């Protein structure tokens, strides 16, 4: 049966006008329709925060839970019922501060959940405190003189936890978002999608350089597996490797041609270049968008299920009363 985005829509979102969550939600509805998993086989699970309101606008099974625990709750749901397709929705505070431990362990275990990280680098629901992705020196209500700590870079955490899938999109870029959501759904294992999202009230302009189409044309690069890493309004720029690092070059300058440009390999087991790509930032580098890493590995819930089947085949007891008789027992007459 074919679904439309209407099939996944529910209710009237209550985010602020102009919030990036609106645009992301529309992309998610559309992506789900294109993916085609039935709404009743889908569960959307979130924690706490502005973006964690999202499950209320999904016509699927859903849970909005407690702060930071969405990854842990999703893990239990997926292992108990592998037939469910699970989308886990978290913000940067929910996913990386209070829920940081569950975030890295769900990735390490490689549970087949689609982990959406809506990163606006601010705490919105509690009205404007800095988050673990706010840059050093960030002025907020709880850091009136600027923060004195460095932020997490989500890709670094993800790869540090052996992440096999990492993709990035800008919330207002619907085609770019839909593309990575579909890739995340197709990937078997924990898929981290970082969504760069604006908070119009407390952190307006945080992703300004890439937030509109013109900005992205100049300041972002869309990575696609098997394609050369070209960017710019006319694809006039490209990425090459230089020493241990990456370098931006202009085609035609210094004899550079397209064949000198790196070709993206999202399936490369080694994550060194994936990390370099993911950490690129302006003004010297474009921000990498698209699927940066997508590597196959056994998923946790399938390994759990397979082990159960293996042991079932080996062991001679398969119900409670048979279990009892595996013990030393004696008869009293």
């Amino acid at each position, binding site marked *: 049966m074919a679904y439309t985005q209407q099939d996944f829509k529910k*209710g009237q979102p209550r985010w602020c006008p102009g919030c990036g969550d609106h645009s992301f939600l529309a992309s998610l509805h559309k992506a789900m329709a294109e993916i085609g998993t*039935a*709404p*009743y*086989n889908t*569960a959307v*699970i979130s924690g*706490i925060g502005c973006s964690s309101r999202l*499950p*209320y606008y*999904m*016509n*699927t*099974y*859903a*849970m*909005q*839970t*407690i702060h930071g*625990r969405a990854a*842990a*709750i*999703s*893990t*239990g*749901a*997926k*292992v*108990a*019922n592998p*037939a*469910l397709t699970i989308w886990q929705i978290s913000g940067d505070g929910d996913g990386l501060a209070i829920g940081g*431990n*569950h975030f890295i*362990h769900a990735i390490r275990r490689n549970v087949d959940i689609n982990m959406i990280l809506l990163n606006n680098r601010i705490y919105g629901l509690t009205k404007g405190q800095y988050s673990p992705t706010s840059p050093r020196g960030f002025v907020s209500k709880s850091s009136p003189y600027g923060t004195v700590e460095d932020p997490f870079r989500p890709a670094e955490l993800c790869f540090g936890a052996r992440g096999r899938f990492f993709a990035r999109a800008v919330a207002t870029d619907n085609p770019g978002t839909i593309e990575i959501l579909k890739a995340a759904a197709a990937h078997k294992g924990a898929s981290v999608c970082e969504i760069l999202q604006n908070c119009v009230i407390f952190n307006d302009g945080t992703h300004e350089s890439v937030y509109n189409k013109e900005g992205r044309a100049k300041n972002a690069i869309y990575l696609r597996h098997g394609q050369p890493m070209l960017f710019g309004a006319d694809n006039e720029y490209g990425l090459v490797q230089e020493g241990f690092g990456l370098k931006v070059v202009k085609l035609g300058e210094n004899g550079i041609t397209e064949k000198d440009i790196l070709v993206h390999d999202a399936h490369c087991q080694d994550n060194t270049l994936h990390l370099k790509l993911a950490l690129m930032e302006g003004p010297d580098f474009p921000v990498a968008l698209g699927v940066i890493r997508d590597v196959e590995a056994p998923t946790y819930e399938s390994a*759990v299920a397979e*082990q*159960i089947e*293996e*042991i*079932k085949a*080996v*062991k*001679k*007891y*398969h*119900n*409670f*009363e048979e*279990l*009892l008789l595996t*013990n*030393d*027992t*004696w*008869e*009293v*007459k």
Partner: protein
Amino acid sequence: MSDQPVVKELEQVIVRFSGDSGDGMQLAGNIFSTVSATVGNDISTFPDYPADIRAPQGSLTGVSGFQIHVGAGKVFTPGDQCDVLVAMNAAALKTQYKFAKPTACIIIDTDCFRKSDLEKAEFKTDNPIEEMGIKQEVIAAPISQMVKDCLADSGMDNKAMLKCRNMFALGLVCWLFNRDLSIAENYLRTKFAKKPAVAEANIRVIHSGYDYGHNTHASVTNTYTIESKVKVPGRYMDISGNKATAYGLIAAAEKAGLKLFLGSYPITPATDILHELSKHKSLGVITVQCEDEISGCASAVGASFAGALAVTSTSGPGVCLKSEAMNLAVIQELPLVVIDVQRGGPSTGLPTKSEQTDLLQALFGRNGESPMPVVAAASPTDCFDAAYQACKIALEHMTPVVLLTDAFVANGSGAWKLPKLADYPAIQPPYAPEEMKDNYTPYRRNPETGVRYWAVPGREGFMHILGGLEKDGKTGAISTDPDNHDAMCRARAEKVAKIPVPDVPVYGCKDDAELLIVGFGGTFGHLYSAMEELNAAGRKVALAHFKYINPLPANTAEVLKKYPKVVVAEQNLGQLAGYLRMRVDGFVPYQFNQVKGQPFVVKELVDAFTHILNN
């Protein structure tokens, strides 16, 4: 031989094995209890081990003990003091002597009473027996040397040979009580099935200990037998409380036709539940060793949402961390069993010791109006029934349930008659009926029970959202309406209050007691034994023992108010007493409270209750 010691018949005997924590005292104790149970004696055991994995060898803090109470009739506790104390080194004698009766027989390994051993045990003289004023019969045997002699031709190294010392002591105890060694042999051959040489070495040493007693009479005047008197026919096994808990969960999942999911994080003294369940993959049991306690509970909430029988196991400090996710299950009205194997607190407290200090935490330790059923297991074998009932309540009433056990019942064991699953009540979760299709909202309730209907993801036409935010009782949408919130708080409370639980049982002089003893959970055996002693002495005493604490049984007020005097005895500073006073108007009991991390001592209970009776 004509001058063999006289064989006397005993009603009961208490043996305590003690030694360094690496001396294998738990194994010796387990084998002796199995040997005794196999011949039809009733048993109750109590392992008493130090918190450190390996304290310095021979030190006072490294002593590990294992006490077994063997009875011709029913036994309810591991016993206060022992008839036989095995002390494998000087430190064990120093710390464990207080557990020996004045009439006890004490067995020591003289090879571990050398000067350095005595110094480590902080003896001031070279004669510990005299220094401690020990008047009891002492079997002083050079056990280490005899073990080495016995295994001299085995090709084992010194260290490996000395690992078998525990079996020599066990052999000697088996001789003292005329036990059949073939049962111990079978036990060892099964335990060391993959290391037959180890099994055979241990078996040789047991025989050597037995023969030593037989040939020398070990300077004792009597040996003993314990004939089984009260036999309920059937097949039995020896089971610890934690294992019985795990079995109860397995049985409930099978009965309910659900997958069993355990999310857990290792914590003493609850970890054996995780160990046990992780073995039984052939029964389809899923265990996830989570990244922390929070995730243990949170993953279980996820599994419950997805349609499994979801359980998380922990001890008190873990409950602190799980509380938020437990509360999520309260407001989402999802079935969940939270097992709290209580240990000494607060904070890390006494990790290997037993208390009943988490009762109020289980009842009230969460934000908001958070009603949660609480069930407490009375004994190691009762953990099975308590776990089964906790699952039944959780699944049938769509609520998290706390199952309280404690380190004493979790690690202790008893002879358990193998149950038949057919004899246990059905478990029927309130699945949303098909006629609710396309019309389902999650908080519509069965008008009689107040229980909502369960729609498991994957079912077409039943999609809904659950969450930590308050919901409208009719539509299931987020609601901050004051009247709705008030109604939902009451609905959740009433649902729990309506859960049917059996009456609290009253034992002893239920019609004319002058004093009613009241307790809950793992103190049952000690309180029952104290009651029996007082009854035997002609005092009119009864015992009401609570297994269901929330909701309280319907006859609670009637029972508590029926007798002239009531004493609530518990291993905390009065948590059950305070709770009962809150729930039963005008109830003012005497209290007996101890928070020592150790089981009650029956004699102390008898003295305290006698004092109350006499006043």
